[in-house]
């Protein structure tokens, strides 16, 4: 029996971050559609499952809420192979401990020895070079014998939810039929990725004055203070959604209906890519090379020439946070103008 025929049941361990999960959707789709596998299950953190609601593979989702639950799920599913789209050591370790025969993933986080099939990303002097995460996910998926047709993220949202969310936004203050610019200023990664709220407010004010659109400020759990701060500093009546229903499913509908998304280097950027919504992403401590995919409708704005950047730290170790504080709103506005001009051309 060929190696391919021997793998009938496959588990895909999805990434743990919103952005990485959205980037992985083309690979999830390709793996679920591959005719060689009798069964494909997708293991993912339970709180991320709403992001994949309405997708064609929703019935393949196996939400997990702890390491013990993950190991138990693997034992019960007893797959022939696991594709690790999460780069964590823990995911590889649990697959190894659960006795999954073939473990396919990237050789990162010190887990090479736990893998039967591994991708070693490009290096220089023995150190990993930054490459787009989407490329790495595709490479790993290809080790399972499945090619990904394209890297454009795939998200789905039902019409009923779109209408519901629109109604919620209008009850929050958006005019009937009014266009809006959505701003998501938060960053679960850490404070180092936060652009100052006054900068967001200034950029939104200028863009709203130019476009006639309304500014809405959204975010995730725990980001209410930041959302309110941005809206409070706006002089054009930006509306904070802090007191309104918010979750990952609603985020999809909110982003899909926006004229523009203004966001940091965080998950909603990829939601915008999935729905072809123009997006300006403000980046500070991260390598732009790590997210250099789906740029057709996105502009990444960052401060060039800083010796300390990028640092990949969650909080600024030098305590000046210049990579974000010194990034002027005018640069963000210029990028947004370029995108909107291209969208209307």
């Amino acid at each position, binding site marked *: 029996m060929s190696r391919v025929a021997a793998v009938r049941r496959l588990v895909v361990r999805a990434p743990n971050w919103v952005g990485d999960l959205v980037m992985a959707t083309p690979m999830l789709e390709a793996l679920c559609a591959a005719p060689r596998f009798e069964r494909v299950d997708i293991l993912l953190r339970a709180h991320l499952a709403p992001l994949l609601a309405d997708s064609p593979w929703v019935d393949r989702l196996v939400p997990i809420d702890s390491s013990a639950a993950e190991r138990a799920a693997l034992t019960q599913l007893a797959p022939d192979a696991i594709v690790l789209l999460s780069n964590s050591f823990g995911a590889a370790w649990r697959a190894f401990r659960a006795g999954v025969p073939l473990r396919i993933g990237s050789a990162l986080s010190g887990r090479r020895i736990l893998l039967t099939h591994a*991708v070693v990303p490009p290096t*220089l002097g023995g150190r990993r*070079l930054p490459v*787009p995460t989407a490329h790495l996910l*595709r490479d790993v998926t290809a*080790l399972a014998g499945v090619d990904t047709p394209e890297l454009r993220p795939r998200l789905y949202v039902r019409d009923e939810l779109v209408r519901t969310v629109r109604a919620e936004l209008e009850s929050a203050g958006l005019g009937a039929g009014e266009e809006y610019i959505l701003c998501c200023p938060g960053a679960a990664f850490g404070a180092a990725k936060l652009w100052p709220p006054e900068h967001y407010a200034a950029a939104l004010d200028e863009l709203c004055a130019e476009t006639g659109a309304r500014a809405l400020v959204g975010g995730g759990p725990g980001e209410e203070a930041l959302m309110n701060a941005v809206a409070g500093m706006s002089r054009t009546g930006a509306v904070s959604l802090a007191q309104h229903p918010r979750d990952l499913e609603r985020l999809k509908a909110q982003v899909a209906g926006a004229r523009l998304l203004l966001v940091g280097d965080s998950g909603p950027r990829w939601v915008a890519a999935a729905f072809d919504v123009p997006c300006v992403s403000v980046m500070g401590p991260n390598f732009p090379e790590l997210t250099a995919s789906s740029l057709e409708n996105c502009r990444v704005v960052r401060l060039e020439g800083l010796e300390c950047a990028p640092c990949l730290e969650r909080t600024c170790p030098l305590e000046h946070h210049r990579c974000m504080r010194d990034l002027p709103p005018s640069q963000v506005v210029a990028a947004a103008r370029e995108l909107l001009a291209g969208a209307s051309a």
Partner: protein
Amino acid sequence: MSRLRDGDRVLLRMPNWLGDFVLAEPFVNALHERAELGRGATTLVGSARMLGLFEGRFPVLERLPLRVDEPENPRTWRGHDAAIFLNGSFKSVVCAWRAGIPNRCGLLRGGRTLLLTGGGVPARERGRAALGRGRKGRRPRYLPRPFETVCQELAGWMGVTIARRRPLLVPTAAALAERAERVAEVGVDLARPYLLLNAAGRPGSAKAWPAARWLELIRRLQGGSLPLVVVSAPDEDEVARRVAAEPRSGVHALVDPAPELPELLAWTAGAAMLISVDSGPRHLATATGVPAVVLYGSTDPRHTADFLTDQVALTADVPCAPCHRERCPLIGDRHLACLDALTPEAVVDLVRGSPAGSGV
């Protein structure tokens, strides 16, 4: 890493293979945008024949076309601050070093690593062979990856952002005129869409579908709603010549001469669909948005696994493939097993199963 600085004059050594050349177009476009913004000039160095595909585009980029067998000349490369190598040649890197270009970047493979100042060691695969991919490669087992991926990453390490990933090529007015002339000769009705068959392949190559298979495919497709246009490369035109020698209604062969690249691009851009082996012309279809059915023999689909939403791959699940060899090392029943397993019936099914070929 050796990121480009504002004002750096860049020399971009283009790939020598047609497919890679086409897939590098987004990188060229990004450098053109950089030059238009006044951030530094770029010179393209590459085959004159292939640079012709950019005729009429990238007006602010300089070109140093290389004729066949013309060596690279360090004197013409002087004055650049950085050289980026999209080809794999050691000689090109030596030329840049002799020209005094201080920043020399590319993939760090083989002996040229000693002369490169930046870039990266390519991604590798470890452990067992990828599922369904046949044999493991030889060490150090560089990971087969789409060339546009490599370009994107190399550009990123240099500080160049490639926003448009998909290659784009546009036939020139002259090429369209050449096509129109040829149409008059061979009698193709351009008012109807046509299927373009790239029946090329060096004799004995492990990428070349046998001529008998092509002729069988043509027999099965002819008489359908779409006429067939058969093209090939010079010296790889056995199928096209046999088609031309036995005229059939609705089947046209472009021979004597075989179309040059600009004309071939024009024919590709106007096709309803391309059927091709895994060779350079299939990337012309990618760059013109034309759907394609691609036959893989010895090559690994991972090398070209991008922009596949309008391309369908036909591969054979044989234990020895992909081996990525030019000549099949096996004998007897296993000789060219990867190509033997690709049947004309399967190709016809794929063509008819696609939106573009549903009327065939």
